[in-house]
């Protein structure tokens, strides 16, 4: 080895100069078969700050790892580079190795000379040159690394569930049974949600309240569950493991602890008003419960209707549970996780307190024709506990209908209302049709549908049952319903699509399968929790496939229909799943946070002088706050380390740890040191494009060796300054490799922001005279190795077509304009500025 072992005090003297060790892996013949490792060793030794170079047959095997540890010890290495496979493969392994030798794991960098070189290029001078440059790019980055510590935050082992429908109840019960104190917050007077309103459930026709009721009661008396009902979320503060939630309890004018639920007050109350819980088909007293099975069984006075006769106070007597002086009460609770289970609403569903509003007029004469009802109204009519005692009767004359029509997809699958399929309407309409027929067997049933969708366990059998029951199914979306003014019957007109003829059917009751919509107040609650909603208005999950119950905010999980419409079995599964996701946090004393977070330099942040907040807008995780007059601040517990804010900051006031601007600039310069005009510089996001480039290697797809790949966590990290620097140095082509839009980004919207940024920057480059073919935005998934290889070939072909001379000419002509922002920001090394000014 060229370097003699230094003395202790010598290290202190050269404290600023890193001591880098480079370990070259043969990987059997996987690397050594294509690349001349001895030459790589000589090259690595020549690099600045490299004090030790060692070849290993297999660096990842025990002997190889031991050689790293030994090297660190013997040569006082403070940085280590392993030139071997992809960091996606063995970075975690070597981070542990170096830690064992007392080095900080973030002082370790990998040079990917296998997937990116020996596996995808033939043995040649060019591929050897590529390997050298890959090693150099790793060494220059390693030289700039600093030790980083993982953040640890303590966890409050209490949970909150917002919304007491069937999904929320199950989430709360599971959390409580795991031993966590759980607050179940419910907006209405009672938990139970929509399931409590249904008559029977498909496909088994169990009585809905008979199976949900016991669960409601269990939640009500569970020692670990505290139901906070008739209450709203006011404010949410904090982060994973440490949320503070402010809740406002609305006054019931009945003291919860003193009310025995006997109902004597309701008996003597002289006032009735429409009961929204019964879809306004029935009434309730001014002091009452919405339904007899309510949990908690506490009465509530509706002061909008109460005439203050105080008969209830008299009959309550000694119990003294009624308190007309009650005020709203705000309480604050500390929890480690929040599970959102706010469910859904159906189109035209009345809300509590909405009884003064005129009925909504809607599709197919709803609100105008008396005998057009919604499915939820039908549920209450069919239910024996409902306002008609289970008699399905017409609003117009109280008679039993003989011909009942069902229209599916009312407001669903309709771009003009809700584009999505509401998931459960086919099944509940079949169920209601079967129940109507059971109640009055001589009823004729007509069902208008576009498609019948029954993808659930036992659902297709249920459809067969409905077919066998002799219903008339008409494939066609009715365009018009008119009312016979005398009989109040309804004439439904549509095409029978299967025959291709118009069809007109008269029914005497029409039930609309109205769309499900996001629960009233979803947007407002989302704002308080800092969780986003997808295009359909429902809460957005962290990943559509692999994190369907998580939100982008750590510690907040989604349960049930608030994430997207679900029927009962799926809502229950989601509730248990969300509880389990929450428990992965609650079960630990602390949560660890990767230190590759964004850090704001308060001296550079311009928010101090003026309202800027660009970073706040660009952060997909709402992890940044910018208070007027103060520098923006990153909440590390919420930061996921994508770097989108870093690249978006107009004043370069934000830095991403371990992926700093100086590191990436140094990598760009190392990559483009030789023959830059022949090269393709690729910025690849870790999760997709970098994965794709690895797969190209693993699959041995060959492509020209003129690409140099810089790994970033997200395409959102790619600053336009990086691209500018590449062209200033004379790059042939620059590619930004991202995840596929719209939903593949690991950081929700990082790739969208990057895409917008590069659409804008493309114009700058065009203005500077750079051929558009030389700047590429490409979305490549981790499964698209072939596409990565193909893209590299095509890009190389384009560079050949354009020709080296023209590339040089374009770069020369555009340099001044492209370099201007770099010069202004002082990003060009002093020595080069002097050259440029010449």
């Amino acid at each position, binding site marked *: 080895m060229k370097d003699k072992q230094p003395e202790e005090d010598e290290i202190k003297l050269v404290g600023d100069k890193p001591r880098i060790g480079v370990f070259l892996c043969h990987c059997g013949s996987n690397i050594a078969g294509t690349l001349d490792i001895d030459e790589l060793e000589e090259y690595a030794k020549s690099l600045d700050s490299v004090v030790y170079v060692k070849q290993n047959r297999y660096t990842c095997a025990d002997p190889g790892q031991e050689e790293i540890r030994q090297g660190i010890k013997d040569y006082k290495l403070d940085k280590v580079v392993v030139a071997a496979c992809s960091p996606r493969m063995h970075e975690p392994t070597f981070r542990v190795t170096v830690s064992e030798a007392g080095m900080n794991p973030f002082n370790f960098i990998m040079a990917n000379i296998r997937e990116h070189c020996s596996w995808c290029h033939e043995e040649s001078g060019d591929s050897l040159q590529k390997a050298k440059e890959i090693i150099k790019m790793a060494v220059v980055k390693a030289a700039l690394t600093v030790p980083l510590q993982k953040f640890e935050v303590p966890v409050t082992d209490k949970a909150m569930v917002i919304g007491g429908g069937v999904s929320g109840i199950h989430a709360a019960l599971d959390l409580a049974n795991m031993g966590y104190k759980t607050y179940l917050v419910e907006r209405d007077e009672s938990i139970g949600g929509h399931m409590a309103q249904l008559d029977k459930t498909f496909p088994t026709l169990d009585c809905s309240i008979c199976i949900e009721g016991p669960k409601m009661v269990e939640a009500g008396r569970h020692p670990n569950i505290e139901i906070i009902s008739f209450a709203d979320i006011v404010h949410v503060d904090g982060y994973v493991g440490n949320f503070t939630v402010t809740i406002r309890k609305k006054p019931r004018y009945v003291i919860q602890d003193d009310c025995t639920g006997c109902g004597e007050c309701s008996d003597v109350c002289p006032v009735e008003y429409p009961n929204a819980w019964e879809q306004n088909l029935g009434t309730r007293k001014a002091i009452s419960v919405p339904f007899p099975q309510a949990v908690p069984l506490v009465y509530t006075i509706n002061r909008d209707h109460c005439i203050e006769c105080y008969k209830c106070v008299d009959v309550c007597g000694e119990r003294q549970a009624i308190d007309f002086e009650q005020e709203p009460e705000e309480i604050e609770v500390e929890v480690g996780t929040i599970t959102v289970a706010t469910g859904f609403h159906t189109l035209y569903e009345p809300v509590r307190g909405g009884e003064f509003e005129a009925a909504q007029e809607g599709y197919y004469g709803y609100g105008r024709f008396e005998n057009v009802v919604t499915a939820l109204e039908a549920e209450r009519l069919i239910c024996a506990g409902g306002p008609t005692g289970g008699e399905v009767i017409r609003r117009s004359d109280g008679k039993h209908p003989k011909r009942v029509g069902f229209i599916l997809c009312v407001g669903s699958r309709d771009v*003009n209302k809700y584009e999505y399929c509401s998931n459960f309407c086919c099944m509940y309409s079949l169920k209601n049709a079967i129940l109507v027929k059971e109640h009055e067997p001589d009823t004729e049933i007509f069902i208008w549908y576009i498609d019948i969708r029954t993808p659930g366990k036992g659902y297709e059998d249920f459809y067969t049952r409905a077919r066998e029951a002799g219903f008339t199914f008409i494939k066609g*979306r*009715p365009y*018009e319903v008119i009312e016979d003014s005398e009989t109040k019957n309804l004439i439904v007109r549509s*095409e*029978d*699509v299967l025959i*291709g003829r*118009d069809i007109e059917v008269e029914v005497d009751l029409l039930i609309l399968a109205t769309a499900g919509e996001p629960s009233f107040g979803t947007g407002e609650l989302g704002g308080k929790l800092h969780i986003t909603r997808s295009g359909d208005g429902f809460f957005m999950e962290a990943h559509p496939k692999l994190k369907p119950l998580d939100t982008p905010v750590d510690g907040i999980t989604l349960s049930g229909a608030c994430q997207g419409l679900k029927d009962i079995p799926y809502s229950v599964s989601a509730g248990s799943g969300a509880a389990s996701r929450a428990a992965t946090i609650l079960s630990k004393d602390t949560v660890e946070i990767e230190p590759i977070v964004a850090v704001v330099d308060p001296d550079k942040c311009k928010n101090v002088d003026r309202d800027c907040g660009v970073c706040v807008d660009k952060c997909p995780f709402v992890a940044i706050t910018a208070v007027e007059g103060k520098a923006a601040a990153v909440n590390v517990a919420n930061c996921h380390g994508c770097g989108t804010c870093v690249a978006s900051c107009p004043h370069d006031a934000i830095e991403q740890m371990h992926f700093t601007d100086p590191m990436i600039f140094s990598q760009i310069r190392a990559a483009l040191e030789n023959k830059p005009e022949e090269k393709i510089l690729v910025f690849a996001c870790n999760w997709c494009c970098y994965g794709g480039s690895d797969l190209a290697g693993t699959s041995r797809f060959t492509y020209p060796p003129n690409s140099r790949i810089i790994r970033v966590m997200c395409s959102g990290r790619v600053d336009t300054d990086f691209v500018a620097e590449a062209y200033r140095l004379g790059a042939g082509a620059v590619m930004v490799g991202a995840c596929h839009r719209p939903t593949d980004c690991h950081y929700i919207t990082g790739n969208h922001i990057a895409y917008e940024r590069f659409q804008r920057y493309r114009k700058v480059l065009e203005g500077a005279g750079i051929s558009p073919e030389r700047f590429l935005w490409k979305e490549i998934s981790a499964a698209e190795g072939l596409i990565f290889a193909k893209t590299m070939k095509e890009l190389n072909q384009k560079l050949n077509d354009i020709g080296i001379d023209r590339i040089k000419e374009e770069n020369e002509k555009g340099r001044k304009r492209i370099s201007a922002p770099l010069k202004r920001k002082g990003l060009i090394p002093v020595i080069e500025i002097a050259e440029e000014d010449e």
Partner: protein
Amino acid sequence: MNDSISRETIENESIDPDFVERIVEAGADRIRTCIQCGTCSSVCPSGRRTAFRTRELMRKALLGLKEEVLSSPDLWLCATCLTCLERCPRQIKVTDAIVIMRNMAVKEGFMLPQHRKVSKKLLQTGHAVPLDEANQEMRKELEIPEIPPTVHAHEDALDDVKEIMKRTGFDKLIQEEEGGEKE
């Protein structure tokens, strides 16, 4: 739609996979989202009186039955009232799609005799509906000039109109039609 008791199988050769693409490119961009719900047919005032099924036309177009669609007299039964376009739950520009297909049909040489007749009139007189005696009489009663200030009053302008039709290839479109009629 015909009264024949036999129905022919749709063969591979009748399917032109590029057909929809051309309709999409010409502006009916959401046509592929059609779910065959039948709203368009059932609101169609023409379909109520004729065998015209808007939905069926959309389906055939989506399947790529170019020849069948373009040669079909159904294509000309739409009154372009736009009701289907307004009511479509997928916001498909149904009427636009029909007009696009009509343009294609004419380019491919499919044209109803009535339309050809009208077009010829336009070529000859500069008017699709030229002035006749009855109209002239009516204009007289209304006390407006018997001859309107159009090509009817400006013989030389008719040459210009003809020139326009020549340069746009409209005259050729009709001539070709006369030569080899496909219907």
